[in-house]
């Protein structure tokens, strides 16, 4: 960026001492965090994450831990055992996700809600907002969709399914609108409000699981009534993969066009980059905030609908959202809050999840390792300075970065 225009002698020069306070606004930092890192850093982040993961595998695999017991006398045993464990685990991970038709369809299935939940975080990031409320929005969306889904069983599929999906969108959108309006009207920080709404949504979900209206007479293992066939997402290729993946991709394209082409998207972007200048130009920070968070809530609501109308076809259970809100954050961070990146990241994490199941079944390494890997990838992606430092990359000085932001 700074190379676009070298200061020339004819230009007035800025005294950097006057500009740089060393303190940048939260918004600037947030935007740096979600759009900053380059491709090299992303690749290195993967390398680092899998290296750390390998260490965890080595020390948790039983054979290699046994060998560790006499590592001083025969170190090669340990390293051989560890190497076997690591290659076995990662081999199963990759082949499980991509090595078969089922692997691929399962990966796409797992990626579907991740893409939607990722977009639900990426879009507000562009407006300088942090949506930690994905979880609550997923729950609300899933509940709305399921409610429409198990009622009105007589409707034809072409009516019932879109209706249920739309209800899911609306449910999530309401949960997104609340932090939006509160931020605009009272200045309440969206991070806090969305976290609280997540928990409120969980309490409400648990409550519905005690009410006959929702669970019929299944009081022992509470579960909502099953979704009617006419609201069930149709599957494809004789697999469990349903048309939800197309919903996700269509939503991604729509959001992409919205952000890159539409006037409203331009407004959101400008508000995210400089709310004061946007206001001065007649834009409305409040409108952009509400739009971004409501749309985001709707996207997360779609993710919830995909879960309740598709995957968990038995209906809504406690914890059906499965941490999708937080997964959405990791997906959006990895995708650097751009739509194409978020879609890629969603596909990748979907594959990791499916591969992780294979890893657990075949190599005996618990699926939870995938969560560690994802967290590590994001940790390194979110802290490009850390990766640069670890790898001694020729880094632009912090001053230069700060200048890009403040200038």
């Amino acid at each position: 960026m700074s190379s676009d225009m070298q200061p020339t002698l004819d230009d007035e020069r800025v005294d950097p001492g006057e500009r740089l306070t060393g303190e940048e606004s939260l918004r600037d930092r947030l935007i740096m965090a979600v759009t900053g890192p380059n491709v090299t850093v992303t690749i290195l982040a993967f390398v680092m994450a899998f290296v750390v993961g390998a260490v965890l595998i080595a020390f948790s695999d039983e054979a290699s831990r046994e060998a560790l017991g006499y590592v001083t006398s025969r170190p090669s045993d340990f390293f051989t055992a560890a190497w076997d464990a690591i290659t076995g685990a990662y081999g199963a991970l990759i082949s499980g996700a991509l090595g078969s038709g089922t692997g691929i369809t399962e990966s796409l299935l797992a990626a579907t809600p991740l893409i939607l939940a990722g977009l639900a975080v990426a879009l507000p990031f562009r407006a300088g907002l942090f949506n930690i409320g994905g979880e609550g929005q997923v729950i609300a969306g899933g509940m709305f969709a399921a409610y429409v889904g198990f009622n009105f069983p007589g409707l034809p599929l072409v009516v019932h399914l879109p209706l249920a999906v739309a209800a899911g969108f609306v449910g999530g959108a309401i949960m997104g609108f609340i932090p939006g309006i509160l931020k605009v009207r009272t200045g309440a920080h969206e991070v806090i409000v969305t976290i609280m709404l997540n928990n409120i949504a969980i309490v409400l979900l648990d409550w519905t699981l005690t009410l006959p209206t929702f669970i019929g007479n299944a009081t022992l293992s509470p579960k909502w009534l099953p979704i009617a066939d006419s609201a069930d997402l149709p599957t494809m290729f004789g697999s469990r993969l349903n048309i939800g993946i197309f919903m996700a991709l269509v939503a991604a394209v729509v959001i992409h066009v919205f952000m890159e082409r539409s006037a409203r998207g331009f407004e959101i972007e400008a508000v995210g980059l400089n709310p004061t200048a946007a206001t001065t130009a007649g834009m409305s920070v409040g409108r952009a905030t509400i739009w971004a968070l409501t749309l985001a809530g709707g996207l997360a609501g779609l993710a919830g609908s995909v879960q309740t109308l598709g995957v968990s076809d038995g209906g809504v259970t406690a914890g059906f959202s499965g941490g999708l809100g937080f997964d959405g954050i990791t997906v959006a961070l990895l995708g650097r809050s751009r739509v194409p990146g978020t879609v890629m990241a969603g596909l990748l994490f979907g594959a990791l999840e499916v591969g992780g199941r294979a890893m657990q079944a075949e190599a005996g390494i618990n699926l939870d390792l995938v969560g560690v890997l994802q967290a590590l990838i994001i940790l390194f992606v979110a802290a490009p300075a850390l990766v640069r430092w670890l790898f001694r990359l020729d880094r632009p000085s912090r001053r230069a970065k700060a200048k890009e932001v403040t200038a």
Partner: protein
Amino acid sequence: MTGDPLVTRARRFGTVAIVLGVFTIVVFAIPNAGVVTTLSLESRLAGGAGSQIGSIDVPVLWSTLVLGLGALALGVALWMGRWRDHAIRAGGAAIGLFVIAFLLWAARGETLFVVDLARLSLRAAVPLTLGALAGVVSERAGVVNIAIEGQLLMGAFMAAVLASVTESPMMGTVAAILGGVAIAAMLGLLSVKFDTDQIVAGVVLIVFATGLTSFLASQWLTVSPDMNSPATFSAFAIPGLSSIPILGPILFDQSFLVYVTLAAVIILQYGVFNTRWGLRLRSVGEHPKAADTVGINVPRTRWLAVLLGGALAGMGGAFLSIDAASSFTEEMSGGKGFIALAAMLAGRYNPRGAFGAALVFGLSEASARALQGFDVGIPSTLLLATPYVVTILVVSGLIGRLRIPGASAQHYSTE
């Protein structure tokens, strides 16, 4: 001139108090003439001497009527312009009266073990308080600590493992402190040294701690259950004090970590506002450059604050796995880190306030359990949402203006 914000606030609280008062009288008092709630002052839980006062029968009509009129009076006084500067306290008192009335009404015709309720509320408040204090010290230094949840989990895990290996809950606590500090160190590394966005860093660390502890628990602890059967803390009755009626079983017949929590609240309240350390801590959080220009080492101050926070939250984790429960289970913190965050905000970044909020949240948790089976009209599980609703009201400025430390979430570097 538009209205004085203090007057507006007092009236808002006044309205709330009046509504609560009227509600109490109409719903709790009037329909319940002749009904009695038995308040048991014995403790079924405290192991120590316990007091032998027995129980008293309280008529629901008269007791709730008095409480309702009290709330009504507070509301009217607030509207009349009394206590403009203490509107929060007066409003809080009205809400407190309402809560008592609610409990009396909910347990009508039954026995309510009030001492045990208080005792359980305090215990439920322990991890919330320690987590909230972790937030207070860290945020007072200008570092947002969303990662409390991760620190609790890491602390819980380490405590369970080490207390199993050493068969000493004390060693478990030490390990928990180290676990919390480890997550805090990562937060410090990311936010103080590598200027990552602090909220992003916090969220990532929660995901990391959840993944790591779950992985280790499922991969390792399930195979070696002896690594997850920790020696736990039990109640230690303080001789003399514990036989005080009512207060004894609540406050002085508790386990080690409860005493630590109470001490931490007092020490930090004093330390943050009345010591050199506290002044410097706050200066770094409010205006780091001002601190820097008088020779205060900003990064070091922030580091120490973040690590101290990690230690506190780690102890909160220890309470979860080797005091409240007796083993580590995956994701056992179950969102308590977020309630702690809420308590910190509701307590306005003050140790005392955070403790007060944690107690209220603890009470709502304990009441939800105690009222199961009673005819409450609303399901008691919904009481669990209280902390979250209260927090939204606080951050929305509906309960006074929340003042955030000036340099919150801002990175600071000299060059």
